[in-house]
């Protein structure tokens, strides 16, 4: 299987940045070389001054005590223990360590091409930067939390004590000063690579081919494809198993793509409502209903509840 290099989808021009903006920047996280040291998690916390999660909570999930991305964790190193040894023609394995293998992967906001969080934000707090990344403006966010339910990856989250939402900014402040984001800078194995998305995509395609050549059949890219449900990611991955294994959705979709259809259905429903209620009034004036009304007025049960208004309504 060969993987063609793909061009990064354009997002800055369509957002309205004048020509001459920087290229679209992103992350390529090559999990095949991740050693699970969590330097990225720590560097991110340090640089962005993120509050601690609950202190010393042990989850019992391998070495993963972070569990997931949150308002105060913007890089998360997942540890997956599998009964599936990596066997390649070069390294068939001696079975000494049993069949256990560890998958480690540093997850992050995907900075989607079609970012649902950005689409649905009612305040315009979420915006597209000149680097093509997606960032929350903390002074505008009113904590409605709509983006939280819109993100197909469950990335963005609210800090309950603060009330606002937070997520990876791809170190917007560092990018403005021409610096590498903190996580990529700290990663000792270059599992996290930062650069112009075009370059990263090319490098990733070559890396997959190399791994396939080495007999690692399961190596695959995730989030690189502009044809996928979110138009491709600004931060994409090389995985060694199916995305679900890492807790990533296999075929995520920006649900705002169905928005025109949703508005159409809502309009028809609203129209149905108008027709229904109008018909309800019309029916009350229909001769049959009038007859019914007359009957119930004459029935002895009803005589007491009769009101003078009916006569006017009937005329």
């Amino acid at each position, binding site marked *: 299987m060969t993987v063609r290099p793909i061009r990064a989808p354009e997002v800055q021009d369509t957002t309205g940045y004048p020509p001459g903006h920087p290229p679209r920047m992103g992350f390529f996280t090559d999990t095949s070389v991740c050693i699970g040291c969590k330097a990225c998690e720590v560097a991110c916390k340090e640089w962005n001054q993120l509050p601690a999660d609950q202190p010393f909570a042990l989850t019992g999930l391998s070495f993963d005590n972070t569990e997931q991305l949150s308002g105060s964790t913007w890089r998360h190193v997942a540890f997956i223990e599998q009964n599936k040894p990596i066997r390649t023609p070069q390294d068939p394995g001696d079975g000494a360590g049993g069949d256990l293998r560890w998958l480690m992967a540093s997850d992050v906001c995907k900075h989607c091409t079609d970012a649902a969080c950005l689409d649905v934000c009612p305040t315009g707090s979420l915006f597209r930067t000149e680097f093509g990344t997606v960032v929350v403006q903390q002074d505008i966010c009113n904590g409605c939390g709509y983006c939280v339910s819109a993100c197909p990856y469950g990335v963005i989250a609210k800090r309950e004590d603060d009330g606002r939402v937070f997520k990876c900014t791809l170190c917007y402040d560092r990018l403005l000063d021409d610096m590498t984001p903190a996580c990529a800078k700290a990663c000792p194995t270059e599992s996290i690579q930062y650069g112009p998305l075009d370059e990263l995509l090319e490098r990733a395609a070559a890396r997959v081919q190399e791994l396939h050549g080495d007999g690692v059949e399961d190596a695959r890219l995730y989030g690189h494809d502009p044809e996928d449900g979110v138009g491709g990611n600004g931060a994409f991955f090389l995985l060694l198993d199916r995305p679900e294994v890492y807790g990533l959705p296999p075929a995520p979709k920006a649900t705002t793509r169905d928005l025109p259809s949703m508005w159409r259905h809502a309009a028809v429903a609203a129209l149905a409502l108008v027709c229904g209620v109008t018909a309800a009034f019309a029916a009350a*004036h229909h001769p049959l209903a009038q007859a019914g009304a007359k009957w119930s007025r004459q029935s002895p049960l009803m005589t007491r509840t009769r009101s003078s208004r009916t006569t006017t309504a009937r005329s």
Partner: protein
Amino acid sequence: MLAAGAQLTGRPGLARAGKIAALAGIALSLGALVEDLGRPERFINMLRTFKPTSPMNMGSWLLAAYTPLAGVSALSDVTGRLPLAGRAACYGAAVLGPAVATYTAVLVSDTAVPAWHEGHREMPFLFAGSATATAAGAAMIAAPSAENAPARHAAVFGAALELAAGRLMRRRIGMIAEAYESGRAGTLLRAAEALSVAGAAGALLAGRRRGLAVLSGAALMAASACVRLGVFSAGVASAEDPRYTVLPQRARALAANASGT
């Protein structure tokens, strides 16, 4: 809308009931919306842009327009002041009413919550039906029975729409329907169906019997509340269990691969 119809056809009691119910409903939901914000004092930021891609933004504009209209219409009816402005506001609110009733469906469907998104075609009809049934139910409780014929008809219509949309949705969304049929959501929605049927039957048979009208009105309002809570719990359940996210997506990916190569 019920109030406007009543106003138009000379049913002041029904009109007043409708206006007050509309104001109470909208005040409650606006209050809940603002309360739910992490930073309630920043509600006004909702109106700093006009953004059709955000159902919540559109909804905020709708509420910003609808609430004062519903307020003026109810207050003027109760106090007898500015009757002309009150009537005009009532018609204005009636035009916006159906939009207010259905935008919330888009609001919940435009999310990555599987049970909500996959039902996006039927959701507006479900919500329109349940909104009609609630409004009609409230009117049946509050309006004099001599004037409540339109409310009774509307109640039957609303309940029927709600039932049909709910059934259709669960049929169409495949395995995700389980989120609507099991657990808390299942219990709530089954209760809702029973209450709807009872309420609609009551509305059909009530005629001028005030007691029956009040009872079926209450059943309809309770049914709608169960529908909303049930849809909410189904959403939460479907978001918590990765099965609902992974299985349909895997099927989608397989289908795409099959047609692509």
